[in-house]
């Protein structure tokens, strides 16, 4: 009886979208190595849509699979849609996680959210709506 299901294992073994984005529009980091899990999400935003997403993850199998799944779920979505990616949705897309790994799905959604907040904050600084037309 493996701890993780096949879907989780697939995302763990072949995580999608791993990496960093050099000039990311938003960056979000959550967790810390003391607790065992840490994720950094990078996003590119284009016309209010997530045009690219990458991440780096330090953590267990679930943390890695969750990062991968969150990146897949976010890609191409509008910021509003992306904000609706809840931990429960991530766990559902992964077809379930062991109970003691639920917190990993929280982390994934949090990191993505933080990246969006970071983007929005930068936007605010640079003047509202300014970034819209940028490419």
């Amino acid at each position, binding site marked *: 009886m493996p701890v*993780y299901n096949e879907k989780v294992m697939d995302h*763990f*073994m072949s*995580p999608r979208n*791993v990496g*960093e984005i050099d000039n990311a529009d938003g960056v979000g*980091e959550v967790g*810390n*190595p*003391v*607790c*065992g*899990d*840490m*994720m*950094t999400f990078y996003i590119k935003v284009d016309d209010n849509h997530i045009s690219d997403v990458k991440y*780096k*993850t*330090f*953590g*267990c*199998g*679930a*943390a*890695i699979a969750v990062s991968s799944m969150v990146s897949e779920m976010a890609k191409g979505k509008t910021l509003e849609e992306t904000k609706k990616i809840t931990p429960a949705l991530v766990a559902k897309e992964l077809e379930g996680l062991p109970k*003691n790994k639920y*917190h990993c799905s929280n982390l994934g959604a949090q990191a993505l959210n933080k990246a969006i907040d970071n983007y929005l904050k930068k936007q605010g600084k640079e003047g509202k709506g300014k970034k819209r037309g940028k490419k």
Partner: protein
Amino acid sequence: MREVYLDYVATTPVLPEVLEAMLPYFRDAYGNVQSLHNWGDKAREAVEGARGKVADLIGGEAEEIIFTASGTESNNFAIKGLAMAQQSKGKHIVVSAIEHFSVLHSSRTLEKWGFELTEVPVDKYGLVDPDKVARSLRKDTVLVSIMHANNEVGTIELIKEIANVVKQSGAIFHTDAVATAGTIPIDVRELGVDALSLAGNQFYGPKGVGALWLKKGVRIMPFLDGGVQEGGRRAGTEDVPAIVGLGKAAELAKAEMGARAKRFSALRDRLIAGLPAGIEHVTVTGHPTRRLPGNASFCVEFIEGEAMLMLLNHQGIAVSSGSACTSRALKASHVLIAMGIPHEIAQGSLLFSFGLDSTVGDVDYVLEAMPPIVDKLRQMSPLYSKFLKDKKGGKK
């Protein structure tokens, strides 16, 4: 796929001779040890034979052996039973910071029952300093428990020296020998301890059986209340097949101990030399020389243990880790933390343990499999990118 079990510290397989010794007691000589008829006689004979063999393994007397159902039970029994039996003399107990949870949590239960607990620290190798034990002793100290060797980092403690110190204080001295009994030589008289725990599944005996050796004359409160089994000290129908298996495993361990240790330590040393040589930022944990023969434990920096375990398992390699994610409690190994290893490094803990089926080929297979695994995870690790950037930027 090649299957390489290097997790003998988690549990060992049962030897064929051990299983063979057990088999008659499931369906043929299946009687209850307490029964006053032929079936009982046969069961009693089997159990008493095993008692002698277990006593022989550690230099004790047969009547000093109390069979239990696990190392955990032996430790609960020892810690709670010895402290409770001495409580009129005082309510202070001493353990090390790196004890197995069955000792540590039993001690904390005693705290709830009004005892005071001192946890003696360890050095960076996981070694308990006998002087520090000496300084922890008080007039009202009734029990000291220091493990014979630590299961996670393999460090063998200075039990004889600690026993000398404790003896002068008049406290009872228990040692958890679950990681050592059947693996390295033990003579309870020479060690100078009053009580010692051991478990079958650590040396090719069955699961579900352990023993507490208790020096003649030392008083203990029963932990399992009920019938009069084990001289009234441990109730419950005796698990005859398991006890017979423990006896056989003890006999074999005694006979083959030297040869086994020689083989295991050669494999251990090969891995301890090879892994840090092949991968940067890998450190050996535990003591360089006072070390269990089969134990090779490491911390791999910038990555986390469970992820390594899973990728190793994908290559057919079975090992353990002391990372937070591998523990259900989601806390990094209290052993590594007590040794002063920073949390983020403790998360990269890996424990390889060698046993009877292990070969040089296994070690080389690990040495081959590990670098790409570490590489893959470091490529994903935000800690590693930071490290690289800092290095590039000339920081640190």
